[in-house]
């Protein structure tokens, strides 16, 4: 069956460290993968998109990798800050003809001062 798996347990790290979140997928062949941030009581906010032919993408303190052989994406936040505390969702395209996004369950990140 098709699955997108993110760590269900919260990730707790100290301010200044690098946070690494994992997104694994099964029985999908996505053309791209997106990462979103969601704060409590709010809708998700787009962060980064990475395509199947891209190994790595960066934006300020954020870095995303995409390994289509391992069927995995890693999301890194360097020099993490308490303001980075949120739930992070990965999403991949489920159908090229409709640009339909399939979301993972998300990983909650807590950055402590």
């Amino acid at each position, binding site marked *: 069956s098709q699955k997108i798996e993110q760590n269900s347990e919260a990730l707790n790290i100290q301010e200044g460290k690098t946070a690494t979140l994992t997104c694994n997928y099964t029985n999908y062949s996505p053309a*791209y993968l997106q990462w979103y941030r969601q704060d409590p*009581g709010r*809708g998700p906010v*787009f962060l980064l998109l990475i395509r199947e032919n891209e190994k790595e993408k960066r934006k300020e303190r954020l870095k995303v990798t995409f390994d289509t052989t391992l069927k995995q994406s890693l999301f890194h936040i360097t020099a993490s800050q308490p303001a980075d505390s949120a739930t992070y969702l990965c999403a991949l395209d489920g159908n090229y003809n409709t640009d339909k996004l399939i979301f993972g369950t998300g990983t909650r990140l807590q950055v402590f001062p």
Partner: protein
Amino acid sequence: EAGVAQSPRYKIIEKRQSVAFWCNPISGHATLYWYQQILGQGPKLLIQFQNNGVVDDSQLPKDRFSAERLKGVDSTLKIQPAKLEDSAVYLCASSLVFGGDQDEQYFGPGTRLTVT
């Protein structure tokens, strides 16, 4: 630029009652999405519109859920009759274009529905 607007923000109804949610996407965005997000899960697409036509409604429970997007702008999502398992946050999102490389989606704040 104004974001995606949704109303109401919260709604509490009894099972078997009906409810409607409204969404106003970002001006000029051709594609509109309705998602259901159950607590502890990621958003699940219910229906996707391209202008005022339906692109994908494969996960919409059509015996009780309906949605329309009149004139290709605002959209409403209706549940009738509601069940306890419909308790969730209903998110509306919009994106600028459709087809080819996926454009980012802009989400509204959501409507939290509680069915008692």
